[in-house]
C-alpha cells in the first residue's frame, strides 16, 4: 500500500541536502501551511458544488450546468464573484468583535480539519488525545458564532446566534458520548492508532450493535452540530433572513459559508475515521486473498470514497426531512439521544469487558 510518508520524507531529504536544517524546516512549515490552505479551499468548493448538484437531483432539477463541463467551475466562479463584493459594516456594530468572529470560526474549523488522517502517512496534527482534541477545537466555533450574532446589532442575528449556541452545545454532548463509545472499543484516542486498529475489521462491524447505535447518534448529532438541515433553524431563511451572519457581506460572509461546508466535511470524515476505518481498506480476518486485493486500491481513494458516501447521507437528510422546531430539537437531544447514549456506552463497556466483540 502506498505510504504518503515516503513523499514527505523525500521532500524533507531533498530540502535538507540542499539547504541548512533551520531553513529547510521553515520551508517545510510553509509548505504544510500552503497544503492545508489549498486543501481547505478546494474541499470547500467541491462541497458547495456537490451540495447544489445533489439538491438539484433531489428536486428533479439540473443544477449548475453552464460554467465549465457539467457546471464544474460554477463554485470557482462564485468564489471570484464573492471576492469582488463590497465588505460593508452597518452602523453601531461592535467593530472589534464583528471582525474577530470570522477568525474564531475559521481557526476552529482549520484546526479540526488538520487532524484528519486523509491517507496513510497524510496527517498534519496527530496528538495522542486526537479525538478529544477535535471535539475541543470544534467547540471554539460556538463562541465565534455567538460573537458574530451579538456584535452585528441585528435582532435576527442575535436570535440566530442564541439558537445556534443552544443547539450546538446540546448536540456536542451527544457527539462526545458517541465518540467515547468508540474510544472504549479502540482503547486509544490517537486518530492514527484508531485507523491502524481497524486493520482486521472496521469498528462498525467489530462493535456491532453498540457501534452501530453510536454511529447513527453521531450522524444525527453531527448534522445538528454543523447547523445543517433538518436542524438548520439558526439560519432558517424564512424567519430569520440568514441567522447569525445576516449582517456580513462579501468575503466576510464567505468565511461562514465555507466554514459551514468544511465543518460538514469534517463531521463526515470523522465518522469515516472512527466507524468505517478511515483510509483503511476493507479487511476481513481470514480472507487473505480478498484483503490483498483490497490493498491495491490506494488509501486516499478509500478515505474520500467513504467520506463522499457520508456526505451524501448528510445531504440526503437535509433535503428529505422538514425543519424541526426549537422545542423538538432540544427534546430530541436531552430526552432521547442523551439517555440512549449513556445506555449505549454501558452496553459497549459490557461488550468490551466480556469480549463479545469481533
Amino acid at each position, binding site marked *: 500500500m502506498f505510504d504518503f510518508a515516503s513523499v514527505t520524507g523525500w521532500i524533507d531529504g531533498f530540502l535538507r541536502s540542499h539547504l541548512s536544517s533551520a531553513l529547510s524546516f521553515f520551508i517545510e512549515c510553509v509548505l504544510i501551511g500552503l497544503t492545508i490552505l489549498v486543501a481547505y479551499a478546494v474541499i470547500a468548493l467541491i462541497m458547495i458544488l456537490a451540495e447544489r448538484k445533489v439538491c438539484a437531483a433531489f428536486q428533479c432539477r439540473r443544477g449548475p450546468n453552464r460554467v465549465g463541463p457539467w457546471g464544474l467551475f460554477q463554485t470557482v466562479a462564485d468564489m471570484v464573484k464573492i471576492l469582488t*463584493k463590497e465588505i460593508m459594516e452597518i452602523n453601531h456594530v461592535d467593530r472589534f468583535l464583528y471582525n474577530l468572529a470570522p477568525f474564531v470560526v*475559521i481557526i476552529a474549523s482549520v*484546526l479540526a480539519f488538520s487532524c484528519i488522517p486523509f491517507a496513510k502517512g497524510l496527517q*498534519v496534527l496527530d496528538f495522542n488525545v486526537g479525538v478529544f482534541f477535535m471535539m475541543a477545537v470544534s467547540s471554539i466555533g460556538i463562541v465565534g458564532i455567538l460573537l458574530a450574532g451579538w456584535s452585528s446589532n441585528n435582532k435576527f*442575528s442575535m436570535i440566530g446566534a442564541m439558537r445556534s449556541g443552544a443547539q450546538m*452545545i446540546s448536540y456536542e454532548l451527544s457527539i*462526545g458520548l458517541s465518540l467515547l463509545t468508540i474510544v*472504549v*472499543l479502540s482503547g486509544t484516542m490517537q486518530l492514527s492508532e484508531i485507523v491502524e486498529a481497524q486493520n482486521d475489521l472496521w469498528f462498525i462491524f467489530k462493535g456491532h450493535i453498540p457501534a452501530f447505535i453510536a454511529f447513527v447518534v453521531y450522524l444525527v448529532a453531527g448534522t445538528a452540530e454543523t447547523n445543517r438541515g433538518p436542524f438548520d433553524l439558526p439560519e432558517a431563511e424564512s424567519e430569520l433572513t440568514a441567522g447569525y451572519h445576516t449582517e456580513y457581506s462579501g468575503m466576510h460572509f464567505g468565511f461562514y459559508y465555507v466554514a459551514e461546508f468544511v465543518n460538514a466535511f469534517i463531521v463526515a470524515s470523522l465518522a469515516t475515521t472512527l466507524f468505517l476505518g478511515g483510509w483503511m481498506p476493507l479487511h476481513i480476518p481470514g480472507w487473505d486473498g480478498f484483503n490483498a486485493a483490497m490493498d491495491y486500491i490506494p488509501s486516499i481513494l478509500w478515505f474520500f470514497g467513504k467520506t463522499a458516501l457520508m456526505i451524501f447521507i448528510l445531504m440526503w437528510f437535509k433535503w428529505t426531512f422538514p425543519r424541526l422546531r426549537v422545542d423538538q430539537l432540544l427534546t430530541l437531544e436531552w430526552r432521547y439521544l442523551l439517555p440512549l447514549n449513556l445506555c449505549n456506552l454501558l452496553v459497549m463497556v459490557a461488550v468490551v469487558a466480556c469480549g463479545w466483540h469481533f
Partner: protein
Amino acid sequence: MLNLTLFVVVILTAIALVAAGWGIGAWISPRTYNPQKGEAYECGIPTRGRSWMQFKAGYYLFAILFLMFDVETVFLFPWAVVVRDMGINGLLSVLFFLVILVLGLAYAWRKGALEWK
C-alpha cells in the same frame, strides 16, 4: 515538540486564510457610501430599540446542564482509554459515576428543566 510546531503552523494558516480572503476582498471590491446601507437588515422600516435584549433563562439552563455533562465527558475520556485493559472492573468503577449523573438528568427531567417553555 513537533506537534506544538505544527499546531502553531496550523493556527497561523487559519489566520492567513482569513486575512488573505479579507484583504483581497477589501482590495478589489468597490466601496460606495449610502446612508441606507448602514441600516440593520431587518424589516425595511427603520428599526426600533436595541438589538441587545434580554433573553429567557432557558438558554442559561441548557448551558449549565451542558457544562455539567461536558465535565463528565472530560473525565470519562481517560477512563475510556484504559477500560479495555481493566475488564469488568472498569464497568463497575464507572457505574456509580454514571448512576449519579443519570439521577441528575432524571431530576432535571422531573423538574421540567428539559422542556422548552
